[in-house]
């Protein structure tokens, strides 16, 4: 039977009737669709990145980039941007038959100087045309002509007064900042016996002046960075351009630019972004409130970082040896300075290991003590109810609480707290038989030893190290103590501050020249070269570049 042509047609593939249904065509469409999806994903990612950067650069709202020639528009814009900022003051006045507006932040501007500036402008001998204001009054160093809104806003927030005149598409910024600030005072943490007493304050410009005042070197450079997406804090990097290693300067710069943070309240907040190992207890940047120390560091080829609102500078790189030095080392005779330095190193050792030694010897190795001393300790310990570790841990905890309380107390109460802590608790716990007197002696020596360390940050790190060392000593005795020391040594050797070993030049035979100002200090006459450890461009102190 012959098949009907219609039925044959009905059984044919769909593609023969509908060309768009062909498999190759469908495949091609599908691949195009996939490509489109891929492209759109890419575009979407790109848009997200753009949006994110926009949000980061202008948090809160979209802001116009420049002023217009209409004062009303400009004023409305400023009032919108400064909405809910009740400390922003707007003063309108007529200037050469045109409306003018001055905007400033109350309390940040020196009003007397502002009035004086305006008086000069308004009551000048001959009328000043607004168009000529820039040319006529820009001779004054404190006046700046700006068109960017963003810059003007930040400047107003920093204490400048903004003058807007109708018909002028630019604004005048009067640098009249006079915020409440602390005068230059003595250092709180780094007192010296023979040396200058002035210390950094919270005002960045004052701090830069304190550094500049100490050297008239044109090679001392100061580069400003803005850190903090919202706080827009000024951070200044200071270095000597023909001394500091170029790679060090560019690395500090790179790390400063890489910081992503919303606010910078103190230099401590950026410190953790700058160091290689933020988990390490050791300070990897030197902090100092002394401008003389900063200048000394600059002339060793190091880089200082000053942060606005922070009364201390950060110095990079840093190592253990530097943290154990003080300005007094250079104002006392070298022999005495060397002995003092050795004393500090011994203090650092005692502040970490003394409680551990007490635990190890009393718990595991009393036989290394002379017989009479071992008997005395045994008798004292027999009265205390706790094992040596618990006893020491308890005392350490009390000491830490006590130190923390004193650090937070008002100055007037510190003396009272010292009496309560030192005499009352110290004596009472012994009399009550909770702690044996020898341990009180050990803990006291440990605390005093930690106070002998010039760097407070290092002292804190050593205090922290005491805990694992005590645990090791309680489990493994003197063996544990030595293992603890080896682990600490390994960590310190592995730790780096801007590429330099944290142990610095100590016992490094490739840096024999640096030994003369390390564990000991030789007379100044012999310190003719700069420390090799920081790789300065010019090693010779005198007669170099």
């Amino acid at each position, binding site marked *: 039977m012959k098949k009907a042509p219609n039925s044959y047609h009905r059984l044919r593939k769909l593609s023969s009737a509908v060309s768009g249904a062909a498999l190759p065509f469908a495949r091609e469409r599908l691949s195009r669709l996939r490509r489109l999806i891929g492209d759109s994903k890419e575009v979407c990612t790109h848009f997200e990145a753009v949006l994110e950067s926009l949000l980061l650069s202008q948090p809160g709202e979209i802001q116009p980039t420049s002023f217009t020639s209409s004062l009303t528009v400009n004023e409305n814009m400023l009032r919108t941007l400064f909405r809910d900022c009740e400390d922003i003051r707007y003063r309108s006045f007529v200037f050469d038959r045109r409306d003018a507006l001055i905007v400033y932040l109350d309390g940040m501007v020196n009003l007397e100087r502002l009035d004086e500036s305006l008086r000069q402008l308004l009551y000048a001998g001959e009328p000043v045309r607004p168009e000529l204001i820039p040319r006529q009054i820009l001779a004054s160093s404190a006046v700046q002509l700006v068109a960017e809104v963003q810059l003007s806003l930040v400047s107003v927030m920093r204490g400048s007064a903004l003058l807007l005149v109708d018909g002028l598409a630019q604004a005048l910024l009067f640098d009249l900042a006079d915020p409440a600030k602390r005068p230059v005072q003595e250092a709180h943490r780094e007192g010296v016996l023979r040396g200058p007493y002035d210390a950094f304050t919270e005002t960045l410009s004052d701090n830069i002046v304190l550094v500049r005042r100490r050297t008239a070197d044109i090679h001392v450079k100061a580069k400003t960075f803005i850190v903090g997406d919202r706080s827009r804090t000024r951070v200044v990097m200071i270095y000597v351009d023909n001394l500091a290693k170029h*790679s060090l300067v560019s690395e500090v710069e790179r790390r400063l630019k890489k910081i992503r943070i919303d606010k910078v309240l103190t230099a401590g907040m950026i410190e953790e972004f700058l160091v290689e190992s933020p988990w390490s207890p050791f300070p990897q940047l030197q902090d100092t409130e002394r401008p003389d120390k900063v200048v000394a560091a600059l002339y060793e080829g190091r880089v200082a970082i000053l942060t606005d609102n922070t009364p201390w500078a950060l110095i990079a790189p840093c190592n253990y040896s530097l943290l154990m030095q003080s300005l007094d080392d250079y104002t006392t005779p070298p022999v005495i300075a060397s002995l003092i330095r050795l004393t500090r190193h011994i203090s650092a050792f005692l502040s970490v290991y003394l409680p551990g030694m007490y635990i190890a010897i009393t718990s595991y190795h009393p036989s290394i003590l002379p017989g009479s001393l071992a008997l005395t300790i045994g008798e004292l310990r027999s009265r205390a109810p706790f094992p040596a570790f618990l006893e020491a841990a308890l005392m350490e905890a009390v000491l830490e609480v006590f130190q923390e309380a004193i650090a937070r107390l008002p100055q007037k109460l510190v003396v009272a707290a010292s009496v309560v802590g030192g005499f009352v608790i110290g004596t009472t716990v012994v009399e009550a038989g909770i702690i044996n007197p020898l341990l009180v002696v050990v803990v006291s020596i440990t605390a005093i030893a930690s106070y002998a360390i010039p760097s407070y940050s290092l002292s804190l790190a050593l205090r922290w190290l005491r805990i694992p060392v005590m645990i090791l000593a309680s489990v493994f005795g003197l063996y544990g103590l030595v293992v603890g020391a080896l682990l600490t040594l390994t960590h310190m050797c592995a730790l780096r501050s801007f590429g330099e070993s944290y*142990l610095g030049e100590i016992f*490094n035979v490739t840096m024999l020249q640096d030994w003369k100002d390390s564990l000991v200090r030789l007379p100044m006459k012999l310190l003719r070269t700069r420390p090799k450890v920081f790789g300065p461009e010019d090693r010779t102190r005198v007669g170099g570049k």
Partner: protein
Amino acid sequence: MASDLDPKDKLSPWQLTILLAAVGIGSQIILAPAQLIKHAGQGAWISVALGAVAFFAATWLMLKLGEQFPDQNLVQYFPAVWGKLLGGIFLAWFVIIHLLQFITILHGFSRVIAFNLFFRTPEEAIAILFLFTCAYGAMQDWGTIIRIQQFIFFVVIPPLVALWLVALLNFSYDRLLPLLPDDPLTVLTGVPATWNFYSGYEVVLLIFPLIYRIGVKKAVAAGAAFGCMGVLFTTVTVLTIGVLSAKTAADMIYPTLVVIKGIEIPGTFVERLEVYMLIVWIPIVFDTMIILFAVPARVLAQSTRYSDHRRWILFFIPVVSVLFVLLDPINIATKTGEALTTLGWGFSFLVAPLTLLAAKLKYPYRKRDTDADIS
């Protein structure tokens, strides 16, 4: 591109001296003298002195081998010289020497510490803590390891020497006589046993490309290290024999500790001097152990084309722990020690010189990089 802020892995010739001396002056100052005095008797101190010369010669040959391939280490040139199979076998030999030595020393170390410092703490507990400490050290880069070596060398070696010099209080010259033994052959048979004292110098095959090619010649630097070790070990052996006599020392497991134990300082403040000696000894052992642990890990990492050697260190921790337990009976530990000495000698005086010879034959016109070539 490496910046000058990157970790520094290069070492100067004097750092090489310290590295070799620090690796050599290790655990064996307490663990090895007994075996040596058993072999060489009265003339043990001569064997030690001769050992310094012999092993310096081995090191010198290794440095010469390094000069044939100045920018390469043994992982790169052993297969090139011997082919993949034989080169691989020699590399395995090198790795086994270091690992076995690590385990043997760990064994002896934990035994000495447990015996002298603790009564109830098991050796395994001591060993495991030390194993982890050494692993942490061995995980570091060469720059860090060299810094550790230098610090320990300058801080720990002087008190160690001072403690040994106190042994002069019990020294008797008569016990040292006759200075030369009746049978000189015993002195010669004692020389191989001194490999334990000086071993660790094989590391030069791995670190050769890292050594600065300026300044003091590498051979001079190595000679200074062996001179330093030779003087120290000879003094220790002389003092041990002079205090205990060779016959008594040969019957003891750790004669050097007995020497220190026997010292009584006038007055009553310092008691049990051997505890102080052990406190000083622990960092010295650590110094040796981190090298012995780092070297095989780095060789294996490079052989297996891993840039990070730390995974091999982590792999070694359980391996070492198991082998440590297997070595527990003291006779097995002794036999392992003897086998290790043979392997060490074989590598130093057979594999290394033959490789040097083969390299010279295979690459006769190769530009060598000697210290003399570089101003």
